[in-house]
């Protein structure tokens, strides 16, 4: 992914809200050093400089903009991105809810009219033979059908940007059986039909599927189930934030996974990472957002 970004031979400008923690500054520093990013760090100047120095990073590599609070820093970062000073806006040490409020602000925010705000991530796991795109680990607790359709479309679009022309989308559940106990089955059936009719374009979609049927060819064979996804999923669509969030966290902590993700539904890429995310994950997120500009 990073190679693709570097091959674009372009510099992107990121505005970071409340950029005071070592993970964020470290990640930004790497992208700046590698030459594909210019950065505005918005926050308490003294704290930013302090963090830079304790990390041994030259603060002069960044444009530091003073802001007195998390809320002000968030609004400033969003405003700078909206007016074109920056291509990408990124969350630093600020809480996700405060940051997203600024992004979603009706007048000064970055939302596209009528768009669904959601999150798409790309996760790299040593135990899987390719990148896996997931949605939504961060924004919509219990998506309805319309929101699920948007989520899937955004994920498909992201896979396209990675050069996967017809990604396989697995609509995940606890079992491949549809049933009244599982609220998402009805939505899933509708989505499969929409994909067949071309309302969700350029993808192969099936569900409900459990994780094994989505990602493990062996299980597909053992169970003898016919699915076009066939253990080769590129995209995992989760029934809820509750299920997607521990999934990606478990992969990062227990399966040596690395996640990059961005907010979709906005006019410019918005990078939101959990504050506890590692520096390398934050770095990948910035690279991913460049691809989505």
């Amino acid at each position, binding site marked *: 992914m990073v190679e693709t970004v570097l091959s674009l031979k372009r510099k992107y400008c990121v505005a970071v809200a409340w950029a005071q923690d070592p993970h964020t500054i470290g990640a930004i520093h790497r992208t700046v050093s590698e030459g594909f990013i210019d950065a505005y760090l918005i926050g308490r100047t003294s704290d930013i400089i302090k963090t830079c120095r304790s990390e041994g990073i030259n603060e002069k590599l960044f444009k530091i903009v003073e802001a007195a609070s998390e809320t002000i820093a968030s609004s400033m970062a969003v405003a700078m991105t909206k007016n074109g000073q920056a291509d990408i806006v990124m969350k630093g040490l600020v809480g996700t809810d405060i940051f997203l409020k600024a992004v979603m602000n009706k007048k000064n925010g970055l939302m596209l009219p009528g768009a669904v705000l959601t999150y798409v991530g790309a996760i790299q796991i040593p*135990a899987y033979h390719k990148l896996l795109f997931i949605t939504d680990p961060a924004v919509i607790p219990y998506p309805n059908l319309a929101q699920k359709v948007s989520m899937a479309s955004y994920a498909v679009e992201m896979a396209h940007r990675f050069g996967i022309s017809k990604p396989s989308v697995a609509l995940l559940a606890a079992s491949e059986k549809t049933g009244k106990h599982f609220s998402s089955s009805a939505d899933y059936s509708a989505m499969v039909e929409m994909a067949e009719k071309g309302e969700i374009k350029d993808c192969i979609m099936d569900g409900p599927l459990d994780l094994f049927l989505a990602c493990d060819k062996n299980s597909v064979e053992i169970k003898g189930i016919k699915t076009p996804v066939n253990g080769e999923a590129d995209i995992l669509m989760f029934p809820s934030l509750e299920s997607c969030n521990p999934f990606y966290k478990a992969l990062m902590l*227990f399966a040596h996974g690395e996640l990059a993700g961005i907010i979709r539904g906005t006019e410019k890429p918005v990078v939101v990472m959990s504050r506890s995310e590692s520096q390398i994950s934050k770095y990948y997120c910035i690279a991913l957002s460049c691809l989505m500009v």
Partner: protein
Amino acid sequence: MVLNTLSDLKNIVAGGPRKKLILAAAQDQHSLGAVLKAWKENIVDPILVGDTESIQNICISNNYDITGLRIIHEPDLLKSVEMSVRMVNSKQADVLMKGMVGTSTLLKCVLNKDWGLRTGNLLSHFALFEVDTYHKVIAVTDVAMNIAPNLKDKIAIVNNSVSCLLRLGYNMPKVAVLGAVEMVNENMEATLHAALLSKMNQRDQIRNCIIDGPLAFDNAVSLESAKHKGIKSEVAGDTDILLMPDIEVGNVLYKSLVFFAKAKVASIILGALAPIVLTSRSDSEQAKFDSILLAAASCK
């Protein structure tokens, strides 16, 4: 005391009298192989209930030596399950295991009011994971049985799991109630349940454990993540039991740990008179063996 690996369960088993395991409808190659391995390793004394001829055929074609093993001939599937359950009910065996029979058939017998294995407790699925990226084993519940547990069900699931760990020798196991976020959010029922469970624990309504939640997955298993978010919790980063909001969350997580994190797992059903081993065809040989091991170790 905590378990660092699933193999540590062998020490618990070695310390006590050999437990009797009944394999119901034993003419099933997948479960039979694991049961015989556990027998050879002195983990359990098996009793096979089922069609003797089919059992013998399977053993011959797989080179299993069953000399000296007790086999009770009952060719009818349902009758063999009923007989197995009745034997556990009358304390002739300590562990029940499913062979060539559907899960629902087995559970129907287990729940029989007259001769089943009811205790008045909810039945729940308990999966014990060994992940090389975590410092001890971690239980995840319920990923397979209760679809959308309400608060009352979750209390029962916690109690089932805590009692199981106590029987394994734990003292005050740490329970993290999983949420997508660590803040209580009135729109996310799981976080409300988590807050209530934590408070009930503080008030001694749920005993013998330390409960905290909601905790997001990273905070439950990583002290560094919890510190980064400024969360103060006795449970964070040191979880023994991870309570799932519902089966949709639990099932994907369970499968991702098995498939992506290459975790070892042992799972049993709790809440009945005896631990029940329900393995499926897609479980690995190791997982079936470890489940028998866990069942034997967790007997009273």
